[in-house]
C-alpha cells in the first residue's frame, strides 16, 4: 500500500513539475512556433538570483518572488534579443539564436559567478516529510502538486477567457494584420515571453527545491523534459503540454520503479524510444490542439 501511494505521489509531483515546465515552453513553442532553447537558462537565472540573495535579510518568500521576477525579465530579454529580430523569418535561425543566447547566459554565469555548484537558500518546509499509510512523502512534493494545480488553473483561465490568448496567437501568425486590427502585437508577444518566464521561474523554484543548488548548466535537463513533454502531448495544444508532462513523468517514474538495476541504465533509451513510438503513432502528439487552418 505504502509503496503504491509513494509511487502515485512521486509520479504526480514529478508530473506537475514537468507540466509547469512544458507549459512555459509551449506558450512560446506552440503558440508562436518558436523553439526557445534559452528556456532552461530562465531557471538558471531564478537559481542564481536566489543564491545571490541568500544570506541577506529578506524573508524567503520575498527572495523567491524576486527570483521569479528575474526569470520574467529574463524571458522578456530573450524576446528582445533573440526573437524579435529574427521571428517569423526562419525557424532554424530562431533556434540557433536562442541556442546562442543560452550559451551566452551560461558562460556569463561561468565568468561572473563560478563553475561550481552554489547552494540556494530554501525554507524548512521544503525538506520536511510526512508519513502517510506507510509511505514517507516529502512535503515538497505535495507543495509542487498544489502549486501546479493553481498555476495551471490560472493559466488556462488566462488563455481561454481573456482576449490576450487570442491576441497572442493572432500576432504570432500574422503580425501586420494583427496590428491593423489595433492589437499591440509587439506587446502581446512580449507578454507571451513574460508568462513563459513566470512559469519557468515557478518551476525553477520547485526544481531547485529538489536539488538545493545551482550550476551554470542547470537548465539543460528541464529544457529537455519540457521539450519532450510538449512534443508527446501535442505541440500546439496547451492542455497537451500538461498531459505530456504528466505522461512523461509517469513513464520515467514507472521505469525507475519497474526496471531492474542493470537495465535501469538504459532508462533513457527506453524513454526516448517510447517517445519515438508515440510520435509515429500520432505525429501531432496526443492532443492535436486547435485544428489547423490549412487547406488547399
Amino acid at each position, binding site marked *: 500500500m505504502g509503496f503504491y501511494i509513494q509511487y502515485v505521489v512521486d509520479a504526480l509531483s514529478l508530473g506537475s513539475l514537468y507540466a509547469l515546465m512544458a507549459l512555459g515552453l509551449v506558450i512560446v513553442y506552440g503558440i508562436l512556433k518558436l523553439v526557445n532553447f534559452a528556456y532552461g537558462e530562465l531557471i538558471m537565472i531564478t537559481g542564481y538570483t536566489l543564491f545571490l540573495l541568500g544570506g541577506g535579510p529578506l524573508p524567503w518568500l520575498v527572495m523567491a518572488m524576486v527570483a521569479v521576477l528575474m526569470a520574467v525579465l529574463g524571458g522578456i530579454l530573450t524576446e528582445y534579443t533573440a526573437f524579435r529580430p*529574427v521571428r517569423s523569418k526562419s525557424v532554424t*535561425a530562431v533556434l540557433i539564436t536562442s541556442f546562442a543566447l543560452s550559451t551566452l547566459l551560461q558562460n556569463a554565469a561561468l565568468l561572473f559567478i563560478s563553475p561550481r555548484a552554489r547552494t540556494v537558500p530554501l525554507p524548512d518546509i521544503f525538506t520536511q516529510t510526512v508519513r502517510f499509510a506507510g509511505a514517507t512523502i516529502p512535503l515538497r512534493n505535495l507543495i509542487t502538486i498544489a502549486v501546479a494545480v493553481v498555476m495551471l488553473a490560472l493559466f488556462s483561465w488566462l488563455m481561454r477567457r481573456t482576449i490576450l490568448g487570442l491576441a497572442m496567437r493572432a500576432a504570432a501568425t500574422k503580425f501586420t494584420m494583427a496590428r491593423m486590427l489595433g492589437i499591440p502585437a509587439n506587446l502581446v508577444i512580449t507578454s507571451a515571453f513574460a508568462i513563459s518566464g513566470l512559469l519557468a521561474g515557478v518551476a525553477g523554484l520547485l526544481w531547485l527545491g529538489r536539488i538545493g543548488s545551482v550550476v551554470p548548466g542547470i537548465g539543460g535537463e528541464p529544457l529537455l523534459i519540457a521539450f519532450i513533454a510538449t512534443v508527446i502531448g501535442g505541440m500546439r495544444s496547451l492542455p497537451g503540454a500538461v498531459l505530456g508532462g504528466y505522461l512523461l513523468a509517469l513513464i520515467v517514474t514507472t521505469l525507475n520503479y519497474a526496471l531492474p538495476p542493470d537495465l535501469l541504465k538504459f532508462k533513457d533509451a527506453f524513454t*526516448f524510444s517510447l517517445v519515438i513510438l508515440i510520435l509515429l503513432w500520432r505525429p501531432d502528439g496526443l492532443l492535436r490542439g486547435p485544428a489547423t487552418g490549412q487547406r488547399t
Partner: protein
Amino acid sequence: MNKSTPITALCLLVPILALALFAGLAGYPVFARIATLLLINLILVLGLQVFMGNSGILSFAHIAFMAIGAYASSVFSIPLQMRGMVLPELYEPISELTLSPTVAILFGGLMATLIAALVSYPLMRLSDAAAVITSFALLMVIHTITVNWSQVTNGPRTLFGVPAFTTLPVVAVVAALAVLAALAFRQTRTGLLLRALRDDELAAVAMGAHPSRIRWCGFVVSALFAGIAGGLWAHFITSFQPNAFYLKETFLILAMLVIGGAGSVTGAVLGTFLVTLSFEGLRLTETMINTSNLLPLRLVGLTEIVLALAMIMVLVLRPSGLMGAREIGELLISRRRRTPDLP
C-alpha cells in the same frame, strides 16, 4: 547538370586546397591540426546540408551517425595488443578481427548508412516539428546506447588506442570529394524532389512525389557523409568518448550550417570556415590576453560569449544565413548576365 555547378565547384574547391596547402606548409603543427579538424567538420556539415539543406527538416541525429562511424571504424582498427585493455569484453567472434584504417573508415561509413537506412524510414513520414523532435529522440537513443554498451564502446569511458591514420592531405581529398558529391546530389532527381518537398509538400505530392521515400534517400546519403567523417575523426583524434557526439557538437555543426545558409552547399562551406576560423581566432586572442597578464582578472568563456553574440548578429541581419538558398556559381552567373543591362 546545372550550368552554374562547375563554377560553384571551382569556387568551393579553391579555399579547401588553399587551406590544406597553407596549413600543411606553414610548419606550425597547431595549424595543420586545426585545418584537419575544420575539414572533417566540413564533411560533417556537408552531410547535414545534403539532408537538412535540401529537405528543410532540421536533424539532430546527424552527429549520432558520426558516432556510429567513429565507433564502428575504431573497434576493428585498434591493434590487438591494445584491444585487450580497451575493450576487454568485446564479443568473442569479432574480438580478433582487425581491419586496416582505410577499410575500417569505409566500414564505419557503411555501418552508419545501414543503420540510418534501417531506423529512419518510419521517421521520414514526419515533417515539421515532429520530425525535428524524433530526430532529437533518435540522437538521445543512440547516445544512451553508446554510453552504456560497454562491450563495444567502452561505455562512457574513453575509447583509446585508435591508430592515427588521418592526415591533412587525406582529409583534404575526402572533403573535396564531399563538396562535389553534395553539389551533385543537389542536382539529382532526389535532390530536386527534396527541395521541392521542402518548399511545398502538398504541391509536390499532387504531382506524384513520394515524400517519405525521397526524404529517406536524402537521410541515408547524409548518414554516409557523417559516418565517413566519424571514421576520419576517430583516426585523427585517436581517443574519444560518447560525449564527443552530443548536443554541443550538434549545435556547433548546426550553427555552421545555419550561419552559412542551409539552403546551399556554398553556405555549408562558408559557415564551416567562418565559424571554425573565428572560434580559433577568438581563442587565440583570449589566450594571448590571459598569458600576457594585461588584465587583472582571467577572461574565461569570452570566446563563447563573443561567438554567441556574433551568431545572433549574423542571423538577425540575414535570417536565412549568409548565402541563402543560392550557390555561389548561380549568383556569379546571374550577376554577369545582369551587368550588360545597366545603362
